[in-house]
């Protein structure tokens, strides 16, 4: 049933991702790929994995961005996966009922046996959470490791999504965001956790914690607060940038 569940419990399982802590190592993405290629959405097909046209299905992608200008700028590593939205249009557009949102915990899943591979759900998702597997002809997405978190054959401490278990920096937190007293809800409150693209109206469950303000508490040792950028002019290497006109023509002529 691709209509959203009307008997939703208050449980909202999801992730809280700390952008202050993420080091951009991609361990979460690799661990996700490893678990899920044998898990609920299996397989996550790779095509031409060692060739020139490498392609494959990943449920978690780690971007890196620069935010701010000059000395105030910072590098932010940014993992992107399904946000298990409360108003997921990816579910309601599905013509077959393959896409659904679970009433009991809010996890958004794809029934691989019902999916006809029309790709419309991926068009409806603003977050790029869904990747089509051309080999199986079906859509793949993050399951919040539903086959780990409820898996009683695993040790209790391992009943968490693979990405959360793999993160060496502790940037990923898993829990019930519908419970205001849960550790993840507390983190969101304390750190000002936010939604991605709130203007889309999808009401994501997953929250992102912003990088903390830069520390400026260092003792004054007489050093300048910021270094002045090195000049481009002068110096031996300065000429390279200015190679234009004649020499550029020579370079082009010789490169032919």
């Amino acid at each position, binding site marked *: 049933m691709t209509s959203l569940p009307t008997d939703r419990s208050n449980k909202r399982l999801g992730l809280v991702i700390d952008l202050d802590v993420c080091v951009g190592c991609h361990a979460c*993405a690799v661990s996700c790929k490893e678990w899920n290629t044998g898990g609920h959405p299996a397989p996550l097909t790779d095509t031409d994995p060692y060739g020139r046209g490498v392609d494959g299905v990943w449920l978690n992608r780690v971007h890196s961005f620069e935010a701010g*200008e000059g000395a105030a700028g910072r590098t932010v590593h940014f993992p992107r996966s399904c946000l298990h939205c409360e108003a997921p249009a990816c579910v309601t557009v599905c013509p*077959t009922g393959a896409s659904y949102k679970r009433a009991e915990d809010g996890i958004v899943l794809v029934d691989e046996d019902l999916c006809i591979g029309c*790709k419309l759900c991926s*068009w409806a*998702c603003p977050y790029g959470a869904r990747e089509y597997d051309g080999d199986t002809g*079906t859509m793949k997405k993050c399951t919040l490791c539903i086959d780990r978190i409820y898996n009683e054959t695993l040790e209790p401490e391992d009943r968490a999504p693979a990405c959360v278990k793999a993160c060496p920096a502790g940037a990923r937190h898993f829990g019930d965001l519908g419970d205001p007293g849960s550790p993840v809800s507390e983190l969101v409150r304390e750190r000002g956790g936010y939604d991605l693209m709130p203007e*889309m109206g999808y009401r994501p469950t997953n929250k992102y914690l912003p990088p903390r303000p830069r520390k400026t508490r260092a003792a004054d040792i007489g050093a300048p607060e910021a270094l002045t950028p090195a000049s481009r002019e002068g110096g031996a290497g300065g000429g390279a940038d200015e190679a234009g006109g004649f020499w550029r023509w020579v370079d082009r002529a010789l490169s032919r």
Partner: protein
Amino acid sequence: MHPAYSIILFTTASGAGYGLLFLLGILGAAGTLPAERWLGAAGLGLALFLVTSGLLASTFHLGHPERAWCALSQWRSSWLSREGMAALFTYLPAVLYGVGWIAFEQTAGLWAAFGVLAAAGAAVTVYCTGMIYASLRTIPQWHTEWVVPGYLLLALASGALLLNLLIHLLGVDRPLFPWLAVAGLAAALALKLVYWRAIEGAGAGSDIGTATGLDRFGPVRPLDAPHTQANYLMKEMGYRIARKHAHKLRRYATILAFAIPIAVTIATAALEGPLAAALAVGAVLSAAFGLVLERWLFFAEAQHVVMLFYGRGPA
């Protein structure tokens, strides 16, 4: 958005087929068209052939065409499911209408009711097609009020062109029908021009700052992509066409889909016999190429917000 040929073929061919079915249903039921066997066979045959080949083409887009019947289950929430239901439902009155028209040469009474039902089914199906695109908030060029009327009017106009071809080929004397096609094409052209103007600055109000939430630190720019090769998202959602090329193709689409068919159809209104029929064939061929180009542009000019994560400009 990646312009998939199966979807372009489906929306243009089925659109014309449903437009023709709509006109045959309404005009036949109203008694404006003669209840002659050959007109019914040629008209309904052509309409259902276009509809069916379009629907079959659309299944080539699927990863699992053999499961396509499952799409008839989620009409409560999904426009794609509704489109499938409406398309299938339309066959029933259309075939019964055809039985009356072709077997009994009757389009009045109960047979007229089937005609009206078939016309309603055709209109609802094309409406659902338009809503599949118009309901996607993630694609500002589609999430506009002009998309659904555009699909409806283009289907009607291309159907009217086909009807004009039929009456000339079969020698049915209906001097007003060319003007129906001309009016439909002119209205569709006006709407398309408004649409093209409307999407020039269209945006969902999202940018890389709201996508990442990092605009609190100032301007955001991508530093490293998550992967070295294009993935599914970039291939499916990242299709892009240069603005100057788009504008040139818009001009070609305007000429082929509207200007030539309008001029030629006016000529068919003034002429008679084989020459008028030949011109009507020309108008249909020109419009076919033009509408495929128009539909290709509809996809190629659509920009998905997910590309913001990959550093593409505001959507």
